């Protein structure tokens, strides 16, 4: 059993590579969405505020599986043809972005309002105040929970297995049922996920301890 597993290990590595690739790309998009969402929630524009409140509430409170299945089954029927990788990427980014927006919003709101007024009184413009004074402080607050979301994102990328996404979970599940070797296969798969997520979780713990 184990011999076969070693022999076919490149298949797992390939899936592992797809998991890493989609996680990195989705993380990039997530951070982008989170900043747009968080800043919009803190802006004075009522329309933007409501829009992102609706987005966050909707995407946080419905399962990722529903969102990915929606994209996977509806888009082709509307003539939009995406690969499963793109569907997964879009679904993961929108889902994690909803949580990320809430984190950025809370971090920005944790900075006292007086700092903005003080900066303005010293002749700082809006962008200068934001980039030189508010954001550096807010990032310190946002970093641990955002890293936690990165861990969730890697774990959630396994949802792609449900739409034949070709990442680690899909490769291992289909290989296991093809060869009828379950225990060792899932053990290896678990270890591969662990090797990605555990170091990140450790970083979160260290950042949280330092924040205290």
């Amino acid at each position, binding site marked *: 059993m184990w011999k076969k597993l070693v022999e076919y290990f490149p298949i797992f590595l390939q899936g592992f590579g797809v998991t890493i690739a989609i996680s990195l790309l989705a993380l990039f998009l997530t951070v982008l969405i989170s900043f747009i969402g968080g800043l919009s929630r803190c802006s004075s524009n009522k329309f933007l505020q409501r829009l992102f409140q609706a987005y966050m*509430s*909707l995407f946080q*409170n419905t399962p*990722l599986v*529903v969102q990915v299945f929606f994209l996977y089954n509806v888009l082709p029927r509307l003539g939009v043809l995406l690969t499963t990788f793109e569907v997964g990427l879009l679904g993961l980014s929108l889902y994690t972005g909803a949580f990320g927006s809430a984190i950025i919003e809370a971090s920005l709101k944790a900075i006292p309002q007086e700092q903005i007024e003080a900066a303005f009184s010293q002749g700082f413009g809006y962008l200068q105040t934001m980039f030189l004074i508010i954001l550096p402080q807010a990032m310190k607050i946002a970093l641990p929970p955002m890293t936690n979301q990165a861990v969730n994102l890697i*774990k959630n990328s396994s949802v792609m297995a449900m739409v034949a996404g070709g990442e680690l979970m899909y490769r291992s599940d289909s290989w296991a049922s093809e060869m009828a070797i379950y225990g060792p296969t*899932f053990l290896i798969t678990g270890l591969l996920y662990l090797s990605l997520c555990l170091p990140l979780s450790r970083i979160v713990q260290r950042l949280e301890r330092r924040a205290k």
Partner: protein
Amino acid sequence: MANLFAPYSWLEILVFLLKGLGMTLFIALVSIALSFIFGSILGIARFSSKGPIGKLAGLYIDIVRNIPLLLFILSFRLVLPSSFLGFKIPFKPVFSAIFAMTVFTSAMVAEILRGGLNGIPKGQWEIAASQGFSFASTMIHIILPQALKKILVPMMGQFVTCIKDTSFCQVVGISELMMNATVIMGKFKYAHQVIILYALVALLYYLVNISLLSASKRIRF
């Protein structure tokens, strides 16, 4: 409007989805109740023991929290036996799914509880000890009530996640809400049918989760 959901009727669709929702809620509620018990034991063990028990609890939490739930659901379905001590286990997929979700959510609950316990000042333990409180009575009467109040919001968030995560159970063929939606979808031809179907499914999950969250905001200790 009559054949919007052809070949089904409105009522058939709704009843079928609600049946799925029933299974979803059953799996979620049992898993939440079990996870709360096991997670609390784990979290307290991790918090209070510096010895092997605490280390073991820490190891369990670290490993389980960093592996996808889907892997637990799949492997428990395939690895767990279908009979135990000669008794056949009925509804095995449901059992293995609840088992997998409990294993996973317990680690999350434990970590949340440990965070809450760490947030209570150490001085309270010393004062309680000086007043003759034992470890157990300090924990039950003084520390836990405060910690539970602090972690109410993240704990409810975890329970909502648990309800959402039941949608993974589709892979082991349990007819929960998502599975039933997929079954219906197989018969649909048009885009608008699929869109309305998924909107309906999303709405059901949304309503359940939002009501749970707003109920938790009313809780006062």
